[in-house]
């Protein structure tokens, strides 16, 4: 009992030191913006770390943690895991993680589909769980605001003292290092990192390979070829809705390949001039809409596009109502191929590259994630009483042992080592009762997200079909790197202002986009549309975005 008291005291002392350091650091950050000398910042940080050195003098640390302890951990239960488990605690992964680290974790899961609401509710409580996993870049005002609100604990000293694994990774990957801190250099999270190029692309176009073969057509690469193929599907194959996809999914529609073809995604992107653009007001977007409107009236696109969900898209693709779609490599291409083959033996779906307007050019745009993805990002909250324990738990995933657990699970059960490479066992890949994703969800987190570095070897094995392996190569062959916006962090006021403006703009954009596509609005009114959006202070948002980008680049 006495021992325990000491420990709490130590934790509190450390926390006080960390908070003090953060206070000084933010203060300096603000000055920095105003053009003050950065020297004071370094001295202040040196001071702070000097203080903490005495508080955490441990060198010979090893898992499992000797004294153990309990931490509360708030995290969304991924839908694939939720299909068979009610809590991460029940999964083999959760059990093993606790066994290996010697730390008891009390997982708290928000109701599926209500993550954002429950997150806001959570913050209104006075006592937070020790660790919260969330897409923190979406926090109103960004991560910096979360620190200022007293929700998130700044981690600079914590990482120095207790996180040798993460520290080593960041030193080896300066690009990632740049992404996961705020503009003034404060670390705040344990990030989810795509550990390879193949992992950064997951969506793209796909169409019926057997039909193409039957019709003697090539995989389309330009918009005109797509038009021909879809027309042929409609007329020759009797597809009632030749092209369909889950329009309601924001992740998909933000990356609509046909809009990309005209160089105008509906959202922000970095233009050739290196500044941030808003695609939905540019001429390319109009051309995209016009094409869609034409295709729609020609019956090449599913008339119910706006009111679709994944169930129906799956049904339409697999029963031949539709012949082409846009979706994910795993849950679309893989799943549909499997389902389609149960009724039609030679059913194949082949990936198509992101289309361009002119034939033979490498597509400028395509879907691509940053290394650091805005999801599954874990922070230690200010309510955490044992910061060291929490840091040790989270740092575990970035070490070798943790990396294997998060990506491949338990050796001998979910994977085996064959000539130095981890190979998933049949329990995962050929489970008679469960799909691969569901089977994986019991043992690893690589098939969704979390605070660890995702391993490329996961994708190589997860995608079992040749088409899938090909898809990743085809889809990722774009110049998208130039155009994606890194995880910038606007200031508190800026993000508030931006959120307000963009909320209005996006609602209007979505409404009008639908009207244009359905032909309820004539393209004569395009200029009005652009003016209306500009009248909603779009320029101010672009200004904010560009400023944030500049700050990011100067990190």
């Amino acid at each position, binding site marked *: 009992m006495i021992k325990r008291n000491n420990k709490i005291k130590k934790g509190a002392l450390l926390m006080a030191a960390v908070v003090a350091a953060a206070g000084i650091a933010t203060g300096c950050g603000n000055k920095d913006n105003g053009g003050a000398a950065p020297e004071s910042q370094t001295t202040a940080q040196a001071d702070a770390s000097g203080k903490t050195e005495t508080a955490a003098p441990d060198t010979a640390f090893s898992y499992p943690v000797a004294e153990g302890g309990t931490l509360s951990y708030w995290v969304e239960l991924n839908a694939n895991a939720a299909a068979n488990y009610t809590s991460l605690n029940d999964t083999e992964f959760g059990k093993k993680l606790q066994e290996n680290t010697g730390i008891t974790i009390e997982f708290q899961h928000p109701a599926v589909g*209500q993550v954002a609401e429950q997150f806001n*509710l959570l913050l209104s409580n006075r006592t937070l769980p020790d660790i919260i996993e969330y897409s923190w870049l979406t926090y109103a005002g960004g991560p910096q605001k979360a620190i200022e609100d007293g929700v998130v604990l700044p981690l600079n000293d914590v990482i120095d003292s207790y996180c040798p694994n993460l520290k080593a990774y960041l030193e080896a990957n300066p690009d990632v290092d740049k992404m996961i801190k705020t503009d003034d250099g404060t670390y705040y999270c344990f990030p989810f990192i795509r550990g390879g190029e193949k992992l950064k692309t997951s969506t793209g176009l796909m169409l019926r390979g057997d039909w193409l073969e039957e019709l003697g057509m090539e995989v389309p690469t330009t918009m005109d070829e797509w038009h021909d193929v879809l027309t042929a599907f409609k007329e020759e194959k009797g597809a009632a809705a030749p092209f369909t996809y889950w329009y309601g999914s924001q992740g998909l529609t933000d990356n609509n390949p046909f809009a990309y073809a005209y160089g105008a995604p509906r959202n922000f992107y970095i233009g050739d001039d290196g500044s941030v653009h808003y695609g939905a007001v540019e001429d390319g977007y109009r051309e995209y809409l016009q094409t869609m409107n034409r295709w729609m009236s020609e019956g090449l696109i599913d*008339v*119910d596009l706006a*009111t679709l*969900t994944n169930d*129906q898209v799956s049904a339409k693709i697999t029963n031949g109502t539709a012949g082409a779609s846009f979706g994910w490599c795993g849950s679309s291409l893989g799943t549909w191929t499997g389902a389609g083959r149960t009724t039609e033996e030679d059913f194949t779906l082949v990936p198509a590259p992101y289309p361009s307007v002119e034939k033979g050019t490498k597509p400028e745009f395509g879907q691509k994630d940053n290394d650091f993805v805005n999801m599954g990002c874990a922070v230690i909250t200010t309510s955490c009483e044992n910061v060291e324990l929490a840091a040790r738990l989270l740092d575990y995933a970035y070490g070798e042992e943790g990396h294997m657990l998060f990506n491949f699970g338990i050796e001998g059960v979910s994977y085996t080592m064959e000539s130095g490479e981890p190979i998933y066992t049949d329990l995962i890949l050929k489970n008679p009762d469960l799909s691969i994703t569901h089977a994986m969800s019991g043992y690893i987190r690589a098939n969704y997200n979390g605070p660890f570095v995702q391993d490329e070897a996961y994708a190589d094995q997860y995608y079992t079909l040749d088409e899938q392996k090909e898809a990743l190569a085809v889809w990722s062959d774009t110049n998208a790197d130039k155009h994606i916006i890194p995880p910038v962090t606007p200031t508190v006021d800026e993000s508030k202002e931006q959120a307000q403006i963009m909320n209005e703009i996006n609602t209007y954009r979505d409404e009008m986009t639908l009207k244009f596509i359905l*032909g309820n609005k004539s393209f004569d009114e395009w200029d009005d549309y652009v003016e209306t959006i500009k009248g909603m202070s779009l320029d101010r948002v672009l200004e904010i975005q560009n400023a944030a980008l500049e700050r990011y680049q100067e990190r």
Partner: protein
Amino acid sequence: MWRCDSGFVFKGVLETEYRAMWGFKNRTVFFKWFLSYLLVLGLAVLFSIGIYFHFHNIINRQSEEITTTLLDKMQADVDARFRSARLNLVNLMLDSDVQKAAGIKGGFSLGDRELLYGIYNDTRKKYIASGDLNHIFIYFREGETVLCEQGHMDGSLFYELYYERPGASAEDFLETLERGWSGEDIAVRNKNGEQEIWILQDSIARGADPSAVLGVSISEKTLNGWMRGILWNESLELMMIRPDGTCIGNLADELRQTAYRIPETDLHGGKITAELELAGEGYRLDAVASSETDFYYVVLMPLKTIERDAISVLLYMAVGLFVCITLAYIFTGIHYNPLRNIMNMFGDYGKDGKREKRNELQWLLDRSTDVLEMNREIRSLYYNNAQTLRSQYLYRMIAFPYDCKSGYVEAFAQDAVFRGRDNLVILFYLEEEGEAWRQTDTALHQFLMTNVLRELVHGAFGVEMVELYDAVACVINGEDKGEETREELDSFFDKVQLFAEERICKRLFAACGGFRQGLEGIYDSYCAAREVSEYREQFQNYSVVWYEDIRNRQVYYEYRIEEEQKIINAMRAGEDQNVCRWIDEVITANFARKDILPGIKKCLLFELVGTVMKGVEQGEDVELSSFERRINEGMSAEEAMEFFHGLIRETCSRIRRKRQAAKEDSQYIREVMQYVQENYQDPDLNVSITALHFEITPSYLSSLFKEQTGVSLLEYINRIRVERIKELLKEGMSVVDICPKAGFRNSGALIRVFKKETGITPGQMKKINK
């Protein structure tokens, strides 16, 4: 010869005795002893059986109550959920977009998709908000399409995705939807074979025939979840049954497979109770009709659970009985063992050589001595009993009001002692000189004094004495000749006093109650004497005090009304320390005074309790169950203070807690008001939405709000809106323009609310403004 004769005679006597004892007598004793054991055992067994049946009865009744409560709760709970599901349907039906879409003839055009998109979003929101529903859908008969929270699709695709099942074709499925519906519920099986309850309702269309049907679907899992939420006893089974044989519940498969159907006739008319056999086991079934659907809510209670409880009672009983008998056997072996006693007794004759050698004369002599001895004892027993009874009579005579019907009155009325006209009761107290009166070795002294007094007075008056509590009560009977008699008695007492002081170093105190007429006067006189004795402490130096002396000396306690007001105020403010301090002051001041009688001091305590009760607000209870007894038992000043401290601390802390709770509520309500002020422009804002935002039930929020502010939340929302309307009217805006700014969908609603709140229409208000 003599020797021989006598030897024979005595021998004969002895032999008879021996035979009697060892023969016949011996057997009866054993028999009786055996019977008594058997009786004890039999009684216990009988009792046990009685208790078992009693418990069986109780368990039966309790389980009946449990099922009734369960059923009531289930009916209220599940019906409420059905109601809210139905409400979704009605909302959808009244939606203008839905009405518009339902009126479109000949299938939807491309342009209509936008309208569908709007409805789709709305449906989705409703679906998410409800949380309970499996689907919300609209089936458009014209195009045979379905719009649900999963999107707009062909009816056949909807069937394929969610309801495809061997044995139920798409045509059958859609045919169901083609029929006209008006809020009926039907059971449908989905793709997974799960049952769903659909509530279907034809839409109303704008300007055309209704060509759509709206539906909500609730899955069996959800229904089971609702029921499981109510169930607290795992051995019970809950289910919902419809006369057509649909059965939903957390039933075990075997139970379900018995394909149980309640005969329709049984189900008609409210509640039913029946016993039946399912899958080879007996169940008790209770059912009640739902007021929202055609379902009956049913509780199945396995009879064996009832039996099990009863049997466990029986088991305990048997164990208890066994333990009792064993213990009884062991204890009787130690303390009371008639068998051993008998053996011992006969052992004396059979084994003790001395006794056997004793001669006959000695035996006879012993016997006669025994008889004499016994006679004397009996006599003194009678005498003592007579004395005790006399004391008892006297005691009744003195200490209780006169009752001429009692036997003892007659007995005393004829007694020479009470021949005189007047009676006087005197209470004598013997006190250590200078010290408090003590019980120890005073009994003897008291006896002495009593006798002395009796000797002295006996010539002049009739005297009877009896010990009464801490004193000796003396009834003196004679003629009251006023002052003369008093002086005579005083002189007697002086003598007794003198005797007491000289011989036994005690002080005598005589409290005289005064002469009263007749036997009925005795009690009066006694009461007077009691009152006098209360003044004992103040008359330290007197030996005799008469009632007449003290009659006019009653002193009351001091407790001013201002003091009481001060204490009450402090209590209401919750300042328990001040209250305690002031009450202490009052108690100390009054208890320190010796001229106040203990009885009067009790009155003070009662008044103080009254003060505390006044300090507590109406409707509050004060824990007073023990105070009356405790005060009546008499308390010292310290005890009284301690008592009040406890009472006050508890009461005050309760007042403070209540006030604190009220304060927290008001903080909460302020937040609600803030929320309303920020969101009144949203036409959807109502009590439910607000409650949803604050995550409490609407009814609780309403009552809390009303309690705290005096107006209902709805009134408050309207008031805020009307205030806004007034402002905008002043700025000269038209009613139509004001609508969205004040949170109204249309001007009709605005005008209605405005008129309700202000009594005039906005138009009139505008005129007034001008």
